[in-house]
């Protein structure tokens, strides 16, 4: 039967890889936003066996009580769910694209800040559920990022290495040029005196050449 197949498939595929249904609010589970701006609370789901009638909701932690922000049931992975929204200024923008169930909050106020939980329950995996928490922080103004320290350090290290390389190149180049000039001067001296180290020197100017002993 189909149920038995799902069970064994679940055992083989899910047990060794993931823990079943996983909800994720992204790599950075918090966001600092300015009062009055519009923010997106990201959430994606992943299941190693696939979903069927996945129930998900977003909840806002209001001093201990969890208020439902929105919820819906997703029949399959490529269907846009019909989401019921219970909170003002909230819009569902996930549209189930690539398992995306993010929401958008327009014109946030300071009361919107806090912990939002993205919860999901998959009946196909014996109602395994999972949730992820996203922290929304509403600030008056964004901190100005000061990069002067990074710029100073990076430019000092880069400048030192570049200076050293330029200096070594220049030194080697100058030595090379000087050596070439020396060679030219030597050539001039040798050709003008007529004595070079070949057999065509002036007669009687060389010492007797010893016969080279041959090695056996």
């Amino acid at each position: 039967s189909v149920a038995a197949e799902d069970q064994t498939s679940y055992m083989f595929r899910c047990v060794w890889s993931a823990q079943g249904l996983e909800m994720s609010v992204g790599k950075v589970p918090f966001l600092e936003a300015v009062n009055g701006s519009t923010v997106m609370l990201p959430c994606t789901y992943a299941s190693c066996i696939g979903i069927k009638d996945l129930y998900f909701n977003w909840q806002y932690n209001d001093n201990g009580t969890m208020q439902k922000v929105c919820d819906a049931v997703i029949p399959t992975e490529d269907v846009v769910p019909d989401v019921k929204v219970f909170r003002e200024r909230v819009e569902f923008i996930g549209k189930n694209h690539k398992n995306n169930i993010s929401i958008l909050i327009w014109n946030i106020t300071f009361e919107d800040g806090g912990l939002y939980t993205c919860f999901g329950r998959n009946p196909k995996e014996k109602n395994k559920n999972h949730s992820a928490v996203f922290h929304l922080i509403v600030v008056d103004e964004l901190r100005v990022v000061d990069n002067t320290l990074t710029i100073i350090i990076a430019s000092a290290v880069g400048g030192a290495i570049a200076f050293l390389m330029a200096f070594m190149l220049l030194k080697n180049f100058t030595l090379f040029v000087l050596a070439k000039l020396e060679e030219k001067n030597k050539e001039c001296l040798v050709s003008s005196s007529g004595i070079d180290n070949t057999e065509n020197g002036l007669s009687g100017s060389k010492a007797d050449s010893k016969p080279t002993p041959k090695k056996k």
Partner: protein
Amino acid sequence: MLVLIALSILHIAAIILLLVATIDNAWWVSPTMSTDVWGRWVLTNNKWNLTDLPSNYETDYLQAVQATSVLACIFSIIALFVFIAELFTLPKGRRFTISGVFQVLACLFIMIAASIYTDRFHVNEKSLGNYGHSFILAWIAFGLTFISSIVYFVLRKK
């Protein structure tokens, strides 16, 4: 051989002192506070909490101390790697000039950091605290890097 080992130990000791001086927030200490160059540890209710540095610190001088102490660490570590490379690639009779150059740059930078700090911070607070171990280690590291750079400039490879 012995000279090489002693030189490496001296260099590594200088690097360690530089790292401790830069990373540990203990340039100026008092019984309830340990501060600079990155943050301030304050003892409240028998618990140490890390707080931001007071805003009356002149940001230019603070950033100069931070940048130069970090640069001293970086150059000293580069000098160690360059020294090891030069050990194997330098022809006989040549001097370890490049390692010496990097080490003398590290010496210069930590001297700048410690001097700016001595001159500009805590000048009127002599009764409220005293210089902490990071500050002392910074000056000792200046001495060690200076000695080791002189040795690099004088030593010839056998």
